[in-house]
C-alpha cells in the first residue's frame, strides 16, 4: 500500500504516481480537502482509496482502476469513464458519469442533477435520490436509482435503461415507463449485488419511446 498525502504531494504528482501504477498496486490518498481532478486518467487495474471529500472531476476518464472515495464528490465525478469501478460513500454533485462509456459507478448517497447525462454504456447505481435532467440523451448502459428521481428523467433518451425504486417527479420528452420483464429483473439483480445494494424489489423501468429518432414535423414541439 502506497500512501499519498496531498498536504505534501501536488495533484500532478498524485496522478503521475497513480498512472504509473501496475495492475494490483494499492494506493491510499489522504488530506484531499475538496481538491480537483484527483485520480484521473488511470489505465491499469490499481486500487485507489481516497479518504476525504473531493472537488471537480474526480476519477475522470477512468479505465480499469478501482477507485473508492470515502466522502462526498463534487461535479463531474467519473466523467467519461471507460471501464473499472468508482464508488463514493457519500453524495455526488452534478453530472456524475457524464458521457461515460463503461465500468460501474456506485454512489451510496444522493446524486445531484444531470446524473448520467449522455451516458454511453456505463452502469450507474445510486443508493439515494437523483436530481433533475438525469440520463438526458442517455445512449446506452443502465442507471439504477434506489431512491427518487427529479424532474425530466431520461429526456431525449436513446437506448439506455433506467430503473427507479422510488418516485419519479416527471419524465422527460420521449421517456416512458416500460414493462419489467425477467431479463430486466435479472440485469437489475446483478447490478445491485455488484454494487452491494440490498434493495431488489419494487423497481420500475423507464426507457425510450423511440419517437424522436427521426425528425417529424408533427412532433416539432417535443424537441
Amino acid at each position, binding site marked *: 500500500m502506497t500512501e499519498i498525502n496531498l498536504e505534501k504531494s501536488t495533484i500532478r504528482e498524485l496522478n503521475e504516481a497513480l498512472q504509473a501504477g501496475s495492475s494490483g498496486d494499492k494506493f491510499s490518498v489522504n488530506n484531499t*480537502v*475538496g481538491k480537483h481532478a484527483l485520480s484521473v486518467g488511470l489505465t491499469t487495474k490499481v486500487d485507489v482509496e481516497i479518504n476525504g471529500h473531493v472537488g471537480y472531476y474526480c476519477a475522470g476518464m477512468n479505465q480499469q482502476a478501482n477507485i473508492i472515495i470515502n466522502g462526498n464528490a463534487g461535479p463531474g465525478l467519473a466523467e467519461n469513464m471507460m471501464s473499472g469501478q468508482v464508488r463514493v460513500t457519500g*453524495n455526488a454533485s452534478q453530472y456524475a458519469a457524464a458521457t461515460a462509456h463503461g465500468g460501474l459507478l456506485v454512489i451510496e*448517497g444522493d446524486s445531484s442533477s444531470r446524473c448520467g447525462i449522455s451516458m454511453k454504456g456505463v452502469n450507474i447505481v445510486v443508493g439515494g435520490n437523483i436530481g433533475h435532467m438525469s440520463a438526458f440523451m442517455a445512449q446506452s448502459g443502465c442507471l439504477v436509482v434506489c431512491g427518487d428521481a427529479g424532474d425530466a428523467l431520461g429526456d431525449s433518451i436513446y437506448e439506455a435503461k433506467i430503473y427507479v425504486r422510488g418516485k419519479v417527479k416527471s419524465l422527460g420528452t420521449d421517456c416512458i415507463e416500460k414493462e419489467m420483464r425477467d431479463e430486466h429483473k435479472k440485469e437489475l439483480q446483478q447490478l445491485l449485488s455488484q454494487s452491494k445494494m440490498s434493495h431488489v424489489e419494487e423497481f420500475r423501468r423507464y426507457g425510450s419511446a423511440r419517437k424522436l429518432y427521426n425528425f417529424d414535423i408533427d412532433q416539432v414541439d417535443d424537441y
Partner: protein
Amino acid sequence: MCGIVGLFIKNQALESQLGALVAPMLSEMTERGPDSAGIAVYRNPQENGCKITVLAQHQDFDWGALEAAISNHFSLRDITVTRNHAVLSLDSEIDDVQVWMRDNWSDLSITSAGTNIEIFKGKGNPAEFIDQFDIKSMTGTHALGHTRMATESAITTEHSHPFSTGQDLCLVHNGSLSNHNRLRETLRKKGVHFKTDNDSEVAAGYLSWRLSEGDDLDQALNHAIEDLDGFYTFAIGTRDGFAVMRDPIGCKPAIMAETDDWAAMSSEYVLLQLCQALKMRAFGSLNQLRFIAGKGVNND
C-alpha cells in the same frame, strides 16, 4: 466562472478572527476568479448614525479635501482611508450624504451604505487584494467575498463584486445573466442608477428596486427567480446575516456548512479548510440551500 465565499460568526468570541478565517477561503477561490476580488464586511455598527464606503478612481485622490468639504456639510465622526477606499462614519442622514456625494464628487463612487457594511474591491490577483486591504486582521460579525473571472464585461474595480443593493445590503454573483440589458433599461426608467454594464450589477439593482417597492428580502428573492434569466448562485448580505440563492436548474455550485459557532458558504469544498482550522466537522450536503441567520426559503 467566479468564486463566492461567505462566513457568519455565531460565537461572539470568534468575531475577532473573521478576517483571518475568510482570507484563506477567498484566496482558495483564486482559480475560479483571478481577475479581481472584493469583500463586504459587517462591523463597527454606527448607533444613531451611518457609514458609507467610497471608492476613488485614482490612487492619488486628495482625501484631505474630501474630509474638509464633508465636515462643512455634515457631522463627520471618522474617516478611515485604505488605499483608494475610504470609510466615512457620520451623524447625518445617509440619503442626504449620498446625494451630496453624487452631486459634488463625480470621481468617487459609493460602494456601500448603511450602519454596519463596508465594501472593498480591487482589480488583480485576490492574494494581492487580501494583502493590500489587510483582510486577515478584519474583525466583524460576517463577511461575503468574491473572486471574479470576467465573462460579461470589463475588468475594472467598479465591475468587481460585491455590489451594494441598498442600506447594509450587498450581492455577490457566480454565473451570468442573459436578460440583463433589457432589465437594466427597464430599471433605469424606474429610477435605479447603474455605474457599469455588468450583469451582476443589474441583479443588485433589481433587488434594490424590489425592496424599495416594499418587498421584504424573501419576496424580493422570489421575484428575482421569476425575472432574472440565466445562471446564478447569489449570496446576499444583510445586516443580520446572509442568504444564498441558486437559479432553478442549479447550474452554479454552492456548498454550505454550519456549526454552533459559525455558518459558511463557498463555491467549492474548500470551506472545509476553515472547518479543519477550527477543528470542527462541517455538515450539510452539496446543493443544500437555505438562508443563514434569517428567515428562509428553500430553493434547491
